[in-house]
């Protein structure tokens, strides 16, 4: 039995790529090492009656064209919007960013009348930039140094989008590409909690602080999250992020894709510098015209392919490609809702995100700890309570809380141990309890996932949630390596489709889709 394509890894990008290839009539097999598909986008009943999105936990960047093309709603995807962001403050005050314009303006004005006005203008500028950058997400990134006419066409195409931006906004975009998130936001706002909470989206998943240059762009990357044509809209998948993967898998299967779980690929079969299949652990060989790897660049090139098949520049680039996982997850099963001192009782503020980011200094200090190999004593947290939106995630009246934590450096001094994992869990619960003292008494079960756990369980190198840092030196035509950013590899018939390729991570699926189009474009 010979397949047209074998996909290594049933993460969301592998599944998206498979679904698009199958849609084009290809015979596709997806091989997943674990007992279920989804990679880091998966839900699990970790504690009886409580379902956790164990790793990734929100949806926004998932490209709307993928939702449409693959008919994901028909296959069970239902996105519930997260409608606010609460930032509790140490003195008992708080800042909430609401979806409703009037409500938001009133809340911001409580902190600063100037910021309340600047907020709309800021939103408009980011909207324009997101529109200019958006087409870049759906294309193989053109390399300005390339001599390939196809890339020139892409570049010209891009230029037209930038022209639409106008001179002034193009300059603003340049700033956004080069500045730190904190500096960029300083140009706009004066409220510390607002700047800190906004700058936090510039550091997510990255071993950088809000004052590190380049983080402003990541801010924009997250702003491009889009629901129903509206930028900066974040949501939560009913049933957890596992339902995103399940819907993509169902769509791929409906188009004839085969999925095999518990199938670990050991090597890509290469003959005469051409990939023609894979070998599984245990020796089984599977033949295929092409092989597509959804694994991260290091696993793909240095693990599955092997240095001997690769040019030395690429090997060097991949060795230098930075992972440095910095994020952890703490998942809590709660007997009751947390009660925040600043906004007591249950309320709509618990239906949105809760951000522990009282000031830019607070975030930068959290980074300082990590810079020297320690867990942040007071970490940055991005918290959601999915059971508020989808009661089926927990028994009636009980809740699940998902806490994204930064910084928990992969390269921890002394390395990760069980004791360190629990210390991280304690730092998170202790810090959060300062804002919601009743939390500790409500915890029924605690799951702590460190970068080392992410690497061990999901296979993401150094636990980096984006398959490699989203920092400027490894984005666009440099992701994952110069000359090999367009989903191809030096091995003929071998392609990459993971978020280690352009445009990067965040349960976007764009890498998988772009890879499928690159493959279909070359082979038709």
């Amino acid at each position, binding site marked *: 039995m010979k397949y047209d394509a074998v996909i290594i890894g049933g993460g969301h990008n592998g599944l998206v790529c498979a679904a698009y290839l199958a849609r084009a009539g290809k015979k596709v097999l997806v091989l997943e090492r674990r007992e279920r598909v989804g990679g880091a986008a998966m839900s699990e009943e970790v504690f009886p009656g409580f379902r956790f999105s164990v790793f990734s936990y929100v949806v926004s960047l998932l490209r709307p064209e993928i939702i*449409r093309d693959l008919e*994901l*709603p028909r296959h069970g995807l*239902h996105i519930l919007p997260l*409608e606010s962001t609460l930032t509790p403050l140490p003195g008992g005050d708080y800042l909430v960013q609401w979806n409703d314009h009037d409500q938001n303006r009133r809340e911001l004005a409580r902190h600063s009348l100037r910021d309340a006005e600047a907020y709309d203008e800021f939103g408009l500028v980011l909207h324009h930039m997101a529109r200019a950058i958006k087409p870049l997400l759906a294309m193989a990134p053109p390399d300005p140094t390339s001599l390939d006419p196809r890339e020139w066409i892409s570049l010209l195409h891009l230029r037209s989008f930038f022209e639409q931006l106008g001179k002034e906004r193009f300059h603003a975009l340049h700033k956004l590409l080069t500045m730190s998130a904190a500096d960029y936001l300083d140009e706009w706002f004066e409220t510390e909690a607002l700047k800190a909470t906004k700058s936090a989206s510039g550091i997510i998943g990255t071993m950088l602080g809000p004052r590190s240059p380049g983080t402003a762009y990541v801010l924009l990357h997250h702003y491009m999250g889009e629901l129903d*044509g509206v930028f900066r809209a974040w949501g939560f998948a009913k049933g957890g992020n596992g339902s995103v993967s399940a819907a993509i898998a169902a769509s791929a299967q409906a188009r004839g894709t085969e999925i095999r779980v518990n199938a670990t690929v050991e090597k890509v079969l290469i003959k005469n510098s051409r990939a023609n299949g894979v070998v599984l652990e245990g020796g089984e060989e599977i033949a295929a015209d092409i092989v597509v790897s959804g694994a991260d660049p290091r696993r793909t090139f240095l693990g599955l392919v092997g240095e001997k098949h690769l040019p030395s520049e690429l090997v060097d680039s991949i060795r230098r490609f930075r992972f440095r996982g910095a994020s952890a997850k703490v998942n809590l099963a709660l007997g009751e809702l947390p009660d925040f001192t600043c906004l007591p009782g249950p309320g709509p503020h618990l239906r949105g995100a809760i951000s522990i980011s009282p000031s830019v200094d607070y975030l930068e200090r959290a980074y300082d700890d990590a810079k020297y190999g320690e867990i942040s004593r007071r970490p940055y947290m991005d918290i959601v309570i999915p059971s*508020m939106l989808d*009661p089926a995630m927990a028994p009636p009246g009980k809740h699940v809380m998902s806490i994204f934590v930064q910084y928990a450096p992969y390269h921890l001094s002394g390395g990760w141990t069980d004791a360190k994992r629990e210390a991280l869990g304690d730092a998170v619960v202790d810090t959060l309890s300062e804002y919601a003292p009743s939390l500790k008494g409500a915890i029924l079960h605690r799951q702590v996932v460190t970068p080392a756990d992410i690497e061990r369980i999901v296979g993401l190198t150094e636990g980096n949630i984006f398959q490699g840092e989203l920092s400027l030196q490894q984005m666009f035509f440099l992701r994952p390596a110069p000359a090999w950013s367009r989903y191809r590899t030096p091995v003929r018939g071998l392609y990459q489709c993971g978020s280690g390729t352009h445009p990067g991570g965040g349960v976007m699926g764009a890498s998988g889709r772009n890879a499928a189009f690159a493959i279909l474009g070359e082979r038709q």
Partner: protein
Amino acid sequence: MLKQTPFHARTAPLCQSHAWRRWAGYVVASSYELSHEREYHCIRAAAALFDISPLFKYSIRGSDAARLLDRVTTRDLSRSQVGQVLYTGWCDGAGKLLDDGTVARLAEDAFLMTAADPNLRWLQDNALGLEVEVEDISESVGALSLQGPQSRQILEALGELPSLKYFRRAETKLRGIPVSVSRTGYTGDLGYEIWVPRDNALALWDALMDVGRGHGIMPAGMLALDMARIEAGLMLLDVDYVSARKALIESQTSSPYEMDLAWTVDLSKPNFVGKRSLEEEARRGPQWRFVGIEIDWDSLERLYTEAGLATRVPQAAWRTSVPLYAAGEQVGYATSGVWSLVLKKYIALAHVRAGWAGTGSTLEIEITVEHHRRRAAARVVKKPFFDPERKRK
């Protein structure tokens, strides 16, 4: 002054948006929160509680009760079982729809009918010479609709919920309050409608909200309901069709066949109002069809891109008449439309000339982009747009 429903004392303080609307002479909430979006998602992911008391409700009793209903509606009610609820329309002598609603058989000789418009006089006039009593109980009975995947669990937690099949009804007690529960609704989701004497209305509301809290219940208004009913492909009087009673010209009227309700017309029963005309229409086929259409995203996006804008979709359901074209001429009109949050599709309900109404037929719909009338591609698709398994399961 508009009338207040039996639940008004509870709904009024919850209505943060101060957005109210009229419904059959009553005042009801459009949305409780500032935006209706969360209320909508509760219908599909948790539980939403609607005050539907303004519905017209008629008690029809007597040995000829079944005969009366058989005479006026298009469905065969003589064969309905006790505990069964039937959805039906009813027509004038020309076979044009007057109204639509449900008829529940409470006993061999007792029915409860719901309607969007007043129908007492019409029912009484048709009862001439029959052993039947028609009573308007609209004001004495309050009604709540509990819709969403968690609705069953909420009712189960409140008392003994008889295992009701889809479109069945039973008497029971919820936290000791005698009520009737029917597994019906206007959302196309798992859900129930609960009928309660006016005096017990507030206690019932409190019980549902109390137990519902653990299940993510939210009171929900008409904006959310409107989105859900379009997804469910359910038509609305005065929006998607005009009652023959109110039509000024014949072209404003619609027959059940034209409204895609052929399945509710039983031509085999002896006689009923409008039968002769409907027989004739069935023979020659309706000239219009009421269909679902889906507006093509890429086509819509192109129009907005040309205007230099990101694509915009309506935030709430619209209910205006929008022209539909094919081969350069107008072949129909859409009457309600919505950006479906659950399907991520722009959908609408429309009247289309029979020749263009087949599933898959391609049309164009008028879209106003930046004050300019443009046309986007659209396609006739099957209704309901959204039809989860749990609705019937």
